[in-house]
């Protein structure tokens, strides 16, 4: 359960960084070499990245549920797990949106325009 909570807390942000880096390097490498279907490749990377962030949110949710206790009492041993799970799910949602917002760029700009 702790592994899932850690994944939930860190997974969304990691997915976003990986997506941003992958998109950047694909453009930096693909444009000078004239890679075909670069736009489609960027789209796939965006979908995979967003799915990764959502998966992190799901991991957080499952990890938070798995801990004992369910009351809202602050002394309840389940409470810190639910807290971390809550933060993880919110982070995953935020980063999923950020991945999609970043991934929209190739729809507006031609991948290698201005080169």
């Amino acid at each position, binding site marked *: 359960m*702790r592994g899932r*909570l850690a994944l939930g*807390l860190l997974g*969304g*942000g*990691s997915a*976003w*960084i990986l997506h*941003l*880096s992958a*998109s*950047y*390097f694909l*453009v*930096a*490498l693909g*444009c*000078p070499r004239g890679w075909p279907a670069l736009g489609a490749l960027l789209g796939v990377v965006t979908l995979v990245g967003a799915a990764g962030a959502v998966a992190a949110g799901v991991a957080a949710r499952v990890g938070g549920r798995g801990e004992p206790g369910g009351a809202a009492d*602050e*002394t309840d*041993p389940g*409470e*810190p*797990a639910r*807290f*971390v799970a*809550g*933060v993880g799910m*919110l*982070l995953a949602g*935020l*980063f999923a949106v*950020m991945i999609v*917002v*970043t991934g*929209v*760029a*190739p729809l*507006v*700009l*031609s*991948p*290698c*325009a*201005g*080169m």
Partner: protein
Amino acid sequence: VTPDPSPDPARREAFERVWHDPTGFVGALRTIQNIPLSRRYMVAAFVFFLAAGIQALLLRVQLFRPDNDFIDAQTYNQLFTMHGTTMMFLFVIPFLEALAAFMLPLMLGTRDLPFPRMTALSFWTYVFGGLFLYTSFLVDAVPDGGWFAYLPLTGKRYSPGLGIDFWDIGLSVAELAAMGAAAELIVGVLRMRAPGMSLARVPLFAWAMLVTGVMIIFAFTPLIVATAMLELDRKLLTRFFDPNAGGKPLLWQHLFWVFGHPEVYIMFVPAVGIVSQIVQTFARRPLVGHTLMVLALVATGFVSFGLWVHHMFATGLQPLALAFFTAATMMIAVPNGVQVFGWLTTLATGRPRWAPPLLFVAGFIVIFVAGGLTGVMLAAVPFNWQAHDSYFVVGHFHYVLIGGVIFPLFAALYYWLPKITGRRLHVRLGQWNFWLMFVFFNVTFFPMHLAGLAGMPRRVYTYGESVGWAGYNALSTIGAFGFGAAVLLLVVNVAWSLYAGPPAGRDPWGGDTLEWTETSPPAEAQYPELPVVRGRHPVWQQTAFAPDDAELARALAPLHVAPTGWRGGLVVSALEGRPLAIVHLPGPTLAPFVVSVGFVGLLVAALIDNPALALVGALVTTGGVVGWFWPRASEGRAIAELGEARTGRLPLAVAGPMANGWWATCVLLLVLGTALLTLVVSYFYLGDGALGWAPARLPLASPLAAAGLLLAASGAMGWGAATTGSATVARRRLALAAVSGAVLAFVAITILGYLAMGIPPHEGAYGSILLGLLGFQWLVAGLLLVMLGLAQLWAWLAPGDPRGHAVLANTSLVSHFTLVSWLVVAGTLYLTPRLG
């Protein structure tokens, strides 16, 4: 078993004696406690702050009127370089880390940080690194390449003196100090807390320092790698950045800004923590949206690593790539917006008391939001191209950094100085301090935006009458002197407080966190009775801090005004704050100071290319390290005695994931992993992303044999580390010897293999990165050999001491990493060229 509520005075006295640090000159060098060390750390950092302020005033005098000749262009270059470098590396980060080192143990309800010797090492290394940098003034070799030291300007051809070497070497050492402190803060927040303080109850300042610590680890490492590359290039040993030999100056910009942008948030995130604590206390209510605040801190930590390219919008990158980073840059406004709304809502729904700390926080919110708005403007590529390298940027980042960091820092001083010194500050002086600072800040920096829009580039040492910038600059200079006067008011206020300030008492503000339960100033022996936390705001929610159930009381009994023969603390589980083990904390030692002195020798040797001095420095450092880890029999006996008396309670002298040292080793491996990633990315960047850019396919026999040796070493280490107790000590010694032999053979084979390649590093970028990757691997192997030596030391000198097993477990981790690291290095150098 309920602990004795009032242990006899003799026990209390013995407990206090064990935490008492030695006095006198040598005693001061041996001190390793967080309270005296972080006080010194803060004072040293503040002195550097004053130095940077004087440099800024000199710059402003020069720009006061057109065609001024107060200082020449060269001096101007030196002053702005040292101003930026000092503020970034010698003031803000060290000061914040020192403040955290002081406050966190108090706030988290623990007796010290997890690695007190590391606190001392960090302090001495920082001081020596800073003094080293400032020695450049004495030998007329002041760095002049700007705080981001762009290539090719800072290469040997265009900066032939020693100035950039001073910058490069001094900075690396200050960064190492910051990283040491960061490792301590990470492990401290996760593992050294009051029982019951779960992650949901950790104060926001501690959350902020946890995020900051992690950011420092990932951000500073690429810069250390980059500065090492720069220094090797400057010594003409390599050509990483020389375009005439396949090198790329833009690689420096990437590596620098991968550090440089997170650096802004490394300074800002602690400020968020400070502001959150202050808003809560002075609004007299819990912060609105605590969970969202934690989310914003973690999100800021991540997002800050995805913004570095916005510093490089004008370097000719692909337009789509710019669009990605524009989106990312604008997104940082989301977590920042969450924070601002959280503070404002808390103030709006609370009963704010407008004491000086809250005034500074209000000033922070106004200025930081303004700076954030110009940041969003700069995120837009067309505007960025217009304003790039203009005074608009100078105005923007001072709004963000002074507004976002210095104002909260002043708020923190007004808030926590009564706790640190035990004396209150003068309220009226504090109010004057704030209003002067707020008004003159805006008088100084707002006109810079206008000067920038009027076309004034940054870093010009003078300008003509006809360009129309005189009014803006005159106003900025007047404002800067007013701002300087405001800073002096703080100094005056602190001096007044120290000599005439009324006693602060334990809790002058009615705060909610644990530090307000301790005396002001805190005693050397903090928390003789460890507090038990039952809520997010313990001081507001609890009237008593004793254990409320028998099981917890029994677990904590050995720490109740105890141990009295050695320094002991509590380790808790990261998530729940459940007591896990009793940790042995070291006593006063000269070792960290000696290691730092050895560092200085190495620094100076690197600067002046003196191998003899380097040898002396290395020997002194090694002596300090051995002294650091030397098994002290008296400590072992004391722990064993308590161990016999405490059957069935919390474990002592734990190893593996239960031990703080194991977590610190994990942090070290994160640093090494980040350095490796930096080098591998540099390898492919230098080759334009082509897998097969290596000029030759290197033979595989040598790397395969080397991998086999490390695999055997890793296996033998696992076999040796699995043994416990003195009965199997012979097996442990044998395993350590075998592993040492295998690692030495690995080093020999890889060095011979490298020499056989015949690709000198000074002839081109490929040879440089080849040596860089292999050199990194040798460094890791060297580290492993040192750790093996220390583990062997414990196996021979203290075979029965259970703490030796922790050393073994940590060495085992490093041995596994050495294997993985070699697989990555060998795969990059030997296999990828075959795929291209």
